[in-house]
Every structure is written in C-alpha cells, then in structure tokens.
C-alpha cells in the first residue's frame, strides 16, 4: 500500500464523510473550495487579469510619451496611471502569480502532499487578494481619482493635504489586504513544505522550486509586516493627526523611505525568487539533466535571502542621509549569489540535450533579459553612478528588465510548462513560439532604448519632455516595442481559446518530467496522488522512468531502492 492510498483513506474530511467527487460545481465550487489546485488556479487567472489591466495602463503611458508634448492624458491621470500600473504589477501580478498561483498549485504536488497544511486559511488568502485588487482598482472611480504618488508613496507627498480624497486611502487598504494575503500564504507554504513532505523527501531532495518558495515565504514574513505597519502609520498620519512622517509634528519623512525600502528590497527578491524557481525546474527537464550544483544553488538562494535584508538604503543613495559604503558593499555582494545562479543554469544546460519547446524558449528570453538587467543593477549599486541616473529612465529600464523580465518570461515559461498539468490539455506550440518571439523582440525594443533615454537625463514619472533632450525618437521606438509586447498577449489569449475549444489531451507526463507533480494524472485528482514512486533522490520520477540513468547511481545523490519498494 502506498502513502497515497493511505492518504486517500486518511486525509478525507474531518468527521469522516466520504469523498464527494460529485461535489459543488461552477461558481459555488469557486466560492467554497479549499483545494489548493482550485485556489492556485484562481490565483493564477486572477493575477493574469490584473496583469492585462495593468499592461493596458502601460500602453496608455507609452502612448502619451510618443511625443515631447503630447496631451493624450492629463498630468493627474498620468500620475495615477503609473502609480496603479506599478502597484498592480508588483502587488497584484508578479507576486501573487507565482507565490499564490504556481506555489499553491505545484508545491504540494512536488512534495507529495494531499493539500496545503491550512486549506481554509489558503482560501481566505485568495479572498483577501481578490478584494485587495478590486479595492486598488476602485480608486479610479472616486471623485479625486486613484492614488498618484508613485508605488513608493513617499511622505509627505502621500499626506492628506498633498493627496486628499478616497483614492489614496483605497490604495492603502488594498496594500494591507493583499499584504495579509501574502503573509497567510507564506505561513501556509512554509508549514506545508516543512511538515507534509512524502517519506524519503528530505530537505536536500526538495525540488529547487520548492526551496525558492520556502525562502520567498521567509522573506515575506520579514518584509510584509513592516509594510503593513508603515501603511498603518501612514493612515494614522492622514486621518488621526499622527506625525510619524511630518516634519512640523516632529516626524521624519526619511523614516518613511527607510521603512518602505526595508520592505521594498526584500520585496524585489520576493518577486524574483519564485520565478528563479520556475526556471530551475524547466531547464533540467528540457536539457534532460539534473540541476548542476544543487547545494550551491540552495545556498545561493539562502544567502540572497539573508543579504537582501541589509541593502534597503541603495534606493536612498541620493538622499544624502545613508551610509554609502555599507549599502553599496552589500548590494554589490548580493550580485555574487545571483551570478552563481546564472552560471548554474548555464552549466545545467551544458552537455545536455536541449529541446526548444515554448517553456524553454521563454527561459532563454528570461536569461538574456535578466543578465542585462542584473549588470545594470550592479552599476546602480555604485552610489556615484546612482547619483547620475537615479529616478531616470535608466532605472526604469533596469527594473523592468529584472522584474518584468522574470515575471513575464519566467512566468510564461512556467505557465506553458505546467499548463498541461493544470488542464490536461496541450497548448499550441506554434502560437506559443510566436508569442515568445513577439514578446522578446517587443520587450527588448521597449526597454533597451530606455537606458539611453535615462542616460540623456529624462526623469521617470514625467508625462512631457524637451525636444532638446533628443529622446523623442528613442521614446517612439520604446512605444512601438511596448505595443508589440502588448500584441504578444493577444496571441497568448488566442492560444488559450483554441486549446480550450479544441482540446488536445496532454497526457500525464508530456515533458518527461523529473519531479512528483508529473507522477499523477493531469489534472490531478482530489488530494493529488493515487500512487507515489519511491523517493530516493531529488528526481524520483526520473529515477523511476530512467533506472539506468538514475540519480542514485552517482555517488552522493541518493540511495538505491530495493526492488520490493517498486510497487505497482
């Protein structure tokens, strides 16, 4: 008898009533389900919708910038648009897509668990996320408009006198709601990974995806409480006459920046690490090799997590109030584990048998964009260079290549990789590849010119610029690129539509996967597994499918299992 059989017997609902496979359907299922797979999918689709909305805002922003003195939108609207675009992309797309979506769906499967540790808390997380998102968008429908102080909401621009109205308050409430959603998910995922692993799946056999989610969860538990506290202080300043961030009342606006970035920098890794995890699943499978330097990779992730708590003030170099050498040293240092990751990925492909299916193409796109964004990030870690380009389009280009690069290319890589598992259907390979090339060309065309735009001195968050800046043509290029990127999402939607209307069965393990999620059916049954293969290394399914190349044949990478364990 396998654990899965037992789990099927034992893990049914409290009170022992039978599995109700003919249970609620449709909207009532969506409202009441505590199945991590349903919640994970809800998270994914919801965050993708938010991404499309925020992306549409980006298109308006880019359209405004096609000429130096355009009047497509008003100054106020422009400020609202980039504020909500940035906030939505970060809080409602990049984070929840990976951490609420992929992690929720995939992590329990990868560790052979029947569900998350706290299924009801998991459902609550989703509702907080959804309502938080709706709250953020609703700012546009208030009389004063949405928040317009940038996603960093620097005090005192975010004070009541400078930003009156309900829009900014809705923004604060939205961040608090989604913040709690993130905290609950983090608690849930860490507990699940620590306590619900299948027998034999030791910590150092966990897939890297799961490892990255653990570290992300730890960072969320560090960062989000600080953000929530800062938001409550801001609200108190706005409405209860507190003076945390007002000079006249003895407070300090710089304190806001310290608090915000103490959250904000770990947040950058909270957004990036999950996608690093996705990429580290896709590369080995499409190269038919194990991850190169598994332990080194785990330690790189952990040290990124640890170091990321000590670099917050690299966003404050130009304030003249921070200890430059300390923060520049740690910021430069954090490039090392990040670099190690990139080299590990290349070394994993080295000597492999690389198949360029859509997920793998997106990985290549991710690597190219991310390395460029990383190199310019190292430049920004040097205060003198930051003085020259801080708050210009150079920074916009840098963080889009890093963040949007990971979330879009890494995200779609994971999406296409696990799409067969999620739905049991296959997407159309040709359309997937077309989407990739459009996104890659469009994305590069959008953000590469922005480096030069920034070096020529165009600040970010401005709707107009000067003819004498000589950035008009470059801005037009960037806008063309943005619309091409936008069109790539249309190709994606068409792909989804076709695969939905004319389904092609994908099979349980279309990619010859390595990890446990491919050991169950597509989509997996309620409580996930019917049988589990024996777990003797980090790649149990590979071992089972390729015994002659199994991991435990390499010294130090697992233990050979006895024949009687191979149950069928």
């Amino acid at each position, binding site marked *: 008898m396998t*654990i899965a059989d*037992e789990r099927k017997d034992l*893990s049914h*609902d*409290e*009170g022992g*009533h039978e599995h*109700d496979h003919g249970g*609620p359907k449709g909207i009532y*299922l969506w*409202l*009441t*389900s*505590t199945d991590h797979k349903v919640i994970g999918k809800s998270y994914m689709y919801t965050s993708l919708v938010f991404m499309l909305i925020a992306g549409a805002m980006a298109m308006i922003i880019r359209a405004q910038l096609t000429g130096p003195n355009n009047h497509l939108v008003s100054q106020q609207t422009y400020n609202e648009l980039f504020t909500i675009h940035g906030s939505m992309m970060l809080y409602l797309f990049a984070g929840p897509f990976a951490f609420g979506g992929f992690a929720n769906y995939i992590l329990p499967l990868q560790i052979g668990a*029947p569900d998350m*540790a706290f*299924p*009801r*808390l998991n*459902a*609550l997380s*989703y*509702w*907080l996320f959804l*309502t938080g998102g709706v*709250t953020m968008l609703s700012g546009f429908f208030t009389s004063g408009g949405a928040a317009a102080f940038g996603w960093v909401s620097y005090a005192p621009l975010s004070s009541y006198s400078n930003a009156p109205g309900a829009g900014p308050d*809705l923004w604060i*409430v939205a961040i608090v*709601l989604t913040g709690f959603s993130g905290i609950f998910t983090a608690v849930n995922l860490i507990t699940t990974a*620590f306590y619900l692993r*299948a*027998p*034999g799946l*030791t*910590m*150092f056999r966990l897939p890297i995806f799961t490892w990255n989610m*653990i570290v992300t969860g*730890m960072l969320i538990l*560090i960062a989000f409480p600080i953000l929530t506290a800062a938001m409550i202080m801001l609200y108190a300043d706005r*409405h209860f006459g507190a003076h945390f961030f007002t000079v006249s009342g003895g407070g300090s606006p710089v*304190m806001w920046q*310290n*608090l915000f970035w*103490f959250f904000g920098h770990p947040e950058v890794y909270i957004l990036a690490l999950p996608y690093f995890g996705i990429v580290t699943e896709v590369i080995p499978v499409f190269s038919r090799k194990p991850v190169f330097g598994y332990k080194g990779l785990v330690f790189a992730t952990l040290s990124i997590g*640890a170091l990321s*708590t*000590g670099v*917050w*003030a690299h966003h404050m170099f130009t304030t003249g109030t*921070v*200890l430059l050498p*300390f923060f520049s040293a740690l910021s430069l240092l954090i490039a090392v584990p990040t670099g190690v990751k990139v080299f590990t990925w290349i070394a994993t492909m080295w000597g492999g048998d690389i198949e360029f299916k859509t997920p793998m193409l997106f990985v290549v796109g991710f690597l190219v964009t991310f390395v460029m964004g990383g190199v310019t990030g190292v430049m920004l870690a040097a205060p003198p260079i930051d003085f020259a380009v801080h708050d210009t389009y150079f920074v916009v280009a840098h963080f889009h290549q890093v963040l949007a690069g990971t979330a879009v290319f890494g995200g779609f890589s994971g999406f296409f990789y696990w799409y067969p598992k999620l739905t049991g259907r296959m997407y159309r390979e040709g359309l997937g590849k077309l989407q990739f090339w459009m996104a890659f060309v469009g994305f590069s065309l959008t953000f590469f010119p922005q480096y030069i735009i920034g070096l020529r001195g165009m600040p970010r968050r401005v709707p107009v610029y000067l003819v004498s800046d000589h950035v008009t043509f470059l801005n037009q290029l960037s806008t063309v690129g943005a619309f091409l990127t936008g069109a790539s999402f249309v190709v994606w939607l068409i792909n989804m539509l076709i695969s939905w209307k004319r389904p092609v069965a994908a099979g349980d393990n279309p990619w010859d996967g390595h990890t446990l999620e491919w050991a169950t059916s597509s989509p997996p049954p309620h*409580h996930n597994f019917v049988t*589990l293969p024996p*777990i*003797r290394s980090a790649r149990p399914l590979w071992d089972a499918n390729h015994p002659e190349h199994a991991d435990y044949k390499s010294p130090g990478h*697992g*233990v050979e*299992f006895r024949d009687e364990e191979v*149950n069928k």
Partner: protein
Amino acid sequence: MKVEYRIYMGIGVFVLLITAVYFFWAKEYGGVTMLFGVAGLGIMPALYFGWWRKRMDPRPEDSETATIAESKGVIGAFPSNTIWPFVLGMGAFLSALSLVFGEWTLVIGGALLIFGAASVTLESRRGGVI
C-alpha cells in the same frame, strides 16, 4: 527538523551580525531596530524547530531511506468545501473599507467576521460538513 532549524538559525545569526556591523558603523538607530527585529524573526522560529527537533520521533520525511509505506497514521485533516473562508474574507474586506467609507461598512463587515470566525471554529469541532 534539523535542516529547517539550521536554515532559520543561519539567517537569524547572519542578520544579527549585519545588525552589529551596522550598529557600530552607521549609528542610525531606525535601521538597527528593524535589523534586530529581523534577526529575531530568524531566531524565534529556529528555537521552536530546535525545541521540537529534540522531542519528536524521527520523521520518515527526514530519512534518506524511508519507504512510501512508512508514513502511517493520520496525515492531517483536509476539509473539502466550506463557505466560511469566503465569508471571513468579505468580512475583512468590508471592515477594511470602513477606513475609507466610514463606520457603516464596519457594522456589516464586523458582523460577517464574527459570524464567519464562529462558524469556522464550530465546523472544525463538529467535523465540518460544508
């Protein structure tokens, strides 16, 4: 549990070191406070895992050679369908909105929160049918 303990302890101690360096070099106490808090967020869970590590039986998921059949007993209770998280979520949502629109949403939101919290607790105790 050993690895879990070490991860948290490692991060906690590392941040404590950074805190010390920052304390003596920058002499900026806002940052010191936050860093110190983070060190605590590493060390506190570490102590919890460390405490359990000594007291719990070895787990099959920590064994390199455990067989799948080794995990016997109840793994956990996983409720299938329940409306209460949704009710709680809406309660939290409406309560939070009172920060923007005034007290009246707090009345509805608070009621939903209390009702939802009570129901979800009862559900667990009586063994949750939807």
